[in-house]
């Protein structure tokens, strides 16, 4: 084994030698520095390999030939080796990254860099408390040197503040180290540890001093103003070093000396960390400078690790692995982001838009953002899961809430940024990224993926997931250079093959939703053939969303479910973001989804804590906590189904998405929320809180969603927004059905889910077809398209008849079931509102067909052609299905009913044979009966007879021109003024406008403004005055001291 001293020898020896070199030897100096860092890295690798294979054991190395406590000793174990590898790799890349600076300057800053990394390594190894002080100082002083890499007065001011702060911090540490010596007669950590149980009060003060000093080094709120200035002013490469290497070292160090602390010290650390995580991310909301933003994010992430480490007495040694997961993600992502920042010119978030000119760089950026936000498959995702599971097992709900809120804030600014990068206007077209500088981020992005792969091994939950769907994502990613049709075919083939092998294995609800998702994939992908070009990125993302959906259906464990949920969220977010103007909507989609996912995570964690099970059956429980868990999970799923109040993301997201994405996210994706609710309701059943039946509340939520969604839809001018609001309404019905917790209610909900899938897929595609020809979404600007796009018109016609629930088409089933279920359940008021909502649906549906298709054809649309075959094909497939289930409703309803009988044995429909031979059966409920086949036949019969009569009666029937109408003797000539379509239901909004006040939107806007206001108020703390920062540190120190003084 190579002794750790060689790091010191090489680092310091070379450092000393380089001290005398000048500008002429810059190239040599630079090369030697690089060589030394490579040596460090090599040694670390050697250790890891040796320790892993058992070639050597973790061991203690003594200096000066004497045993501790009389000399200084170093310890090298696997943990030390891994941390040193992280530091050294970062150091190696940093030296490479800085080579221009190092070559340019006359003074060999490379030597400072080298000595600094040597010092960090030694901090990791050393077991002597005073030695830590010395190397802390070496780190601090070399930091103050390399801050100068950016030679401007900002950097100088920041460096000065940093030095001031660090001298105060080191004074705390020094006093601590000295006091521990006087109290225990030793400076050797392991020696002191043996005396922990007999610590004198002085030793307790000493431990407190040392711990708090390291904690302040880790930039806790509010004693961290100095660090933020450094992040902002210093070269981003320095940011990478501070945020990555220094922080990692300090955390390791803290973990090393924290063992001396009492439970109270741990608790203090945990609280400080959690508050830092919360407040730092909160203040990050107001940041416009990318480096400062990254600074806030770094501080937040480190706070999280602090919080995790502080939970050790509660959660046990497992926290180290959790903390490491978060740390590793932070380390890789933050360093990578800082490096990227160094390649971007300009100091606004918008200037990062340049990244999107290079898909590889953009991917790397995306990986970092998603990793920081703890999405799968990154290590932080597993860490988050383990952490929340662990915390809820010990009942630390406050901490969970703090952490979850903090991570929500973090996601807000990260994704706002991501959206800007992907979407913002950018003047420069050249990507301007040097590949040399991108190598580091690329390497770290790969390491993140690898880290995620290995992190799975540390999962405490059983991991029985089928990752095959994710293969499609990877394959399509690799093949992204191919033309769109090829990728489309490939993905279709993959969906087909997967369905062929896996769908037969599903049962019950799995099967229903599996079919929805897979059939949905096929229907929406067929549309994709109408797209030309490569559509870069589209197919892997689509595959990701569908992979998430199918994994969701397959999930049997809490973890699997959550994993799939997050994959799906990520995929769909990207898809929505692809729309031209969708950035703000994609962001709000992400925020609601993420908030919902956090609630789901917390709910799962609590459920697991109550029952101790890892499968979804953990939700079957009877505990005082069940209503709370129920509420959290329901809210989580409702964000996806866009229940009223949580719906504000939906209209924008669905309408601004690309033409074939809209049906995916509307017709298909929303069903994931429904599936979640089914999974939940099946297991938890009806819950009460204070004697109030939560299902009754949900039924009101559902029915209000239906009513208000429909009302809003009726008021839209934009046809995609109209359909989007219509989804809010439809999903409201589904929720209403589910909330009834009866056979008929669920039959309503599930058949409704299937129907909504069919209608919305079809209608969004039809509307997409219209858009593909008219390039307009404003309905009043169209008109008369029936003459140009009759095939599309027929689709919309069938769609609206079906959706409005008019017999004989399948929508009537929903109405009939709904009424029966309402009567059965005695939900009369909700039932009446459901009827009103159903009637209102007429309004928007009529508008949808009238405004674009009927009325006066506009001049600019006279040459419009029918939508292309690939757009029409899936629509007509859906029509075929709709006609089939309309004619023989039992095909669908009877089968679902059989399934539901397992859950709700009573109150289902009775199916009896009728007089008609071909299997048409009459459905009999408790109250009424209905035979869809008869209705269809009678209607067609009457219609047919009348049509024949008409055809026979008419004489000389001829078509007239567009303006040949009775118009007070005038002959109108401008279709714009003759087409009544704008503000179609003015009278309606006059009568019921009070129901359409965007209360939810105002509420969320209000919340958002307050949150940002508070962030702004909070950050006033950091007024830029170094002296004030010192006072913050002192204040923080004293508050901690007096808080804990109650008895260490």
């Amino acid at each position, binding site marked *: 084994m190579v002794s750790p001293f060689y790091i010191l020898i090489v680092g310091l020896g070379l450092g000393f030698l380089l001290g005398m070199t000048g500008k002429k030897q810059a190239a040599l100096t630079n090369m030697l520095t690089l060589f030394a860092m490579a040596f460090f890295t090599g040694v670390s690798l050697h250790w890891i390999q040796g320790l892993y294979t058992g070639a050597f054991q973790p061991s203690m190395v003594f200096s000066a030939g004497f045993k501790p406590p009389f000399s200084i000793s170093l310890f090298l174990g696997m943990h030390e080796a891994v941390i040193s590898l992280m530091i050294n790799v970062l150091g190696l890349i940093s030296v490479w990254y800085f080579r221009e600076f190092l070559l340019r300057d006359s003074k060999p800053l490379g030597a400072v860099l080298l000595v600094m990394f040597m010092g960090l390594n030694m901090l990791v190894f050393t077991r002597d408390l005073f030695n830590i002080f010395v190397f802390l100082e070496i780190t601090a002083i070399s930091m103050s040197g390399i801050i100068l890499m950016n030679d401007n007065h900002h950097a100088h001011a920041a460096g000065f503040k940093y030095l001031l702060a660090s001298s105060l911090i080191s004074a705390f540490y020094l006093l601590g180290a000295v006091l521990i010596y006087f109290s225990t007669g030793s400076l050797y950590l392991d020696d002191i540890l043996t005396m922990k149980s007999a610590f004198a009060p002085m030793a307790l003060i000493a431990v407190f001093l040392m711990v708090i000093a390291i904690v302040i080094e880790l930039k806790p709120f509010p004693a961290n103003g100095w660090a933020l200035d450094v992040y902002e002013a210093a070269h981003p490469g320095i940011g990478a070093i501070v945020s990555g290497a220094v922080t990692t070292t300090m955390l390791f160090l803290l973990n090393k000396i924290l063992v001396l602390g009492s439970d109270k010290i741990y608790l203090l650390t945990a609280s400080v960390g959690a508050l830092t995580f919360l407040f730092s991310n909160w203040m990050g909301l107001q940041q416009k400078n990318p480096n400062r933003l990254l600074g806030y994010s770094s501080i937040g992430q480190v706070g999280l690790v602090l919080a995790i480490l502080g939970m050790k007495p509660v959660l046990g040694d497992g926290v180290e692995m959790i903390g490491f997961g978060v740390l590793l993600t932070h380390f890789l992502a933050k360093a990578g982001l800082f490096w990227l920042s160094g390649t971007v010119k300009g100091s606004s978030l918008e200037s990062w838009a340049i990244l999107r000119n290079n898909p590889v760089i953009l991917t790397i950026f995306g990986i970092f953002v998603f990793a920081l936000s703890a999405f799968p498959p990154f290590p932080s995702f597993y860490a988050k899961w383990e952490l929340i599971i662990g915390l809820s097992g010990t009942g630390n709900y406050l901490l969970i809430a703090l952490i979850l809120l903090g991570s929500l804030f973090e996601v807000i600014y990260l994704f706002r940024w991501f959206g800007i990068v992907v979407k913002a206007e950018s003047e420069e077209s050249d990507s301007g990224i040097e590949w040399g500088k991108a190598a580091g981020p690329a390497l770290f992005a790969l390491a993140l993926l690898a880290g995620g792969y290995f992190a799975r091994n540390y999962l405490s939950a059983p991991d029985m997931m089928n990752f095959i769907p994710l293969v499609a994502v990877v394959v399509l990613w690799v093949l992204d250079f191919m033309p769109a049709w090829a990728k489309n075919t490939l993905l279709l083939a993959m969906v087909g093959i997967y369905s062929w092998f896996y769908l037969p294995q599903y049962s019950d609800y799995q099967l229903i939703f599996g079919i929805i998702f897979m059939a949905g994939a096929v229907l929406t992908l067929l549309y994709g053939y109408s797209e030309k070009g490569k559509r870069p990125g589209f197919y892997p993302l689509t595959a990701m969303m569908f992979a998430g959906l199918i994994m969701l259906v397959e999930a049997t464990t809490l973890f699997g479910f959550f994993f799939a949920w997050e994959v799906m969220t990520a995929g769909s977010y990207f898809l929505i973001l692809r729309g031209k103007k969708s950035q703000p909507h994609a962001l709000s989609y992400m925020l609601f989804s993420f908030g919902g996912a956090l609630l789901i995570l917390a709910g799962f964690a609590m459920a697991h804590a109550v029952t101790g099970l890892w499968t979804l059956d953990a939700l079957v429980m009877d505990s005082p906590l069940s209503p709370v868990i129920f509420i959290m999970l329901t809210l989580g799923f409702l964000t996806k189904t866009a229940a009223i109040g949580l719906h504000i993301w939906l209209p924008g997201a669905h309408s601004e998405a690309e033409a074939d994405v809209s049906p995916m996210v509307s017709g298909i994706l929303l069903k994931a929320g429904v599936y979640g609710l089914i999974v939940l309701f099946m297991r938890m059943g009806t819950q009460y809180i204070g004697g109030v039946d939560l299902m009754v509340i949900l039924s009101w939520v559902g029915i209000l969603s239906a009513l208000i969604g429909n009302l809003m839809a009726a008021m839209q001018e934009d046809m995609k927004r109209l359909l989007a609001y219509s989804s809010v309404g439809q999903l409201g019905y589904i929720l209403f059905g589910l909330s009834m917790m009866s056979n008929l209610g669920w039959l309503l909900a599930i058949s409704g889910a299937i129907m909504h899938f069919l209608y919305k897929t079809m209608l969004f595609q039809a509307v997409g077809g219209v858009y593909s020809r008219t390039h307009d979404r404003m309905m009043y600007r169209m008109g008369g398209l029936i003459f140009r796009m009759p095939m599309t018109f027929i689709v919309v016609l069938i769609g609206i008849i079906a959706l409005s629930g008019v017999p004989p088409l399948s929508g009537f089933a929903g109405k009939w079931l709904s009424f029966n279920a309402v009567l059965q359940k005695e939900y009369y008021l909700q039932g009446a509102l459901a009827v009103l909502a159903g*009637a209102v649906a007429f309004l928007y549906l*009529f508008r949808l067909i009238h405004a674009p298709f*009927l009325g006066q054809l506009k001049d600019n649309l006279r040459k419009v052609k029918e939508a292309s075959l690939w757009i029409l094909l899936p629509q007509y497939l859906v029509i075929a299905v709709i006609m089939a289930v309309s004619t023989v409703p039992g095909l669908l309803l009877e089968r679902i009913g059989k399934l539901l009988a397992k859950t709700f044995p009573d109150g289902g429909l009775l199916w009896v044979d009728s007089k008609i031979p071909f299997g048409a059966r009459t459905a009999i409920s408790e*109250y009424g009966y209905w*035979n869809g086949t008869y209705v269809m036949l009678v209607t067609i019969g009457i219609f047919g007879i009348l049509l024949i009569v008409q055809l026979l009666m*008419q004489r000389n029937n001829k078509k*007239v021109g567009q303006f040949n109408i009775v*118009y007070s003797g005038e002959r109108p000539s401008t279709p714009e003024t003759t087409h009544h379509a704008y503000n179609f239901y003015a009278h309606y909004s006059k009568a019921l406008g009070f129901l359409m006040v965007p209360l939810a939107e105002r509420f969320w806007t209000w919340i958002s403004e307050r949150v940002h206001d508070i962030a702004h108020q909070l950050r006033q703390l950091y007024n830029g005055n170094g002296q004030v920062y010192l006072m913050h540190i002192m204040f923080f120190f004293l508050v901690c001291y007096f808080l804990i003084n109650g008895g260490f």
Partner: protein
Amino acid sequence: MGEKIVYAIIAVFIMLNYGFLVNGVIRRIYARVGRRIGVPIYQMYIDLFKSWGLRTNIRHGTMFYLGPIFRLTGGIGLFLFMPAVYGLALFTNFSFSGDLLLLLSFQFFGTLGMALGASESGHPNSAIGVTRGLAQMTAVEVPFILAIMAVAIQYDSLSLTEIIAQQQGGFLNWTLFTNPLATAAALLAMLGAMMRAPFDVVLAPQEIPIGPPTEYHSNYMVFLQSNRAIFPLAKSILFMNLFFGGATTIVMMLVKTFILLMWPVLVGVSFPRFRVEQSIRWFLRVPMIIGLLGIAYVHFFLK
């Protein structure tokens, strides 16, 4: 099955003619109230043949062409999905296809088709008329449904046959007397569905003199007029069945429906006209509250 179809055709034929005559009577009543003599009772037939006789008929497009057919299908279908006379095979129609809810939903079949047809004409007033009709219809639905719900709760059934059966045995068994609140709500809602004042602003565009039916002429008009004959009748039958004990003989059915049809006429000749938003608000206040009281009454006192 075959005999059912024959019966249905006979029933429709009877009801159509009855409807024409009733419409004639109503026009006369309106005239008399307005101090005019009015048209002869058989005027509808004259109009019908006149329209039929027109030599040319034009169309704006397919939906325009199909609109009246949709409309009449809606009217006849509504009638045919109901048992018009309790216990009489001739007038049982196709009521086995579905229950009360089928009727409630099917009445929109014609509305929708007509709206589409009228819209295709490209006449702005058609669209205005349609929006008015649809908007008002949504508000009318609420008290009506509340009343229906009350009835369904009261009789534990959505089957019209069953509801009529339970009202047999003396007029005190009629819903009118067992649940006057629901009946009141339904009758008020009926005003909105019958296109008479004060809720006839929907038709205003045709009075000036254009609008959906005005674009239509010739044999389109025949269909529309036929529908105006049979559709209100079908609705009256529905009300009769729900609230007035149904009918056991054809004569009783004709008398009861006539009386019911007179109710909106009476109101219509005595009141001025509401604007759409006014009628929406009105329906969502008075009748809706009565409807809710009706349900409460059933829920707390009859069950």
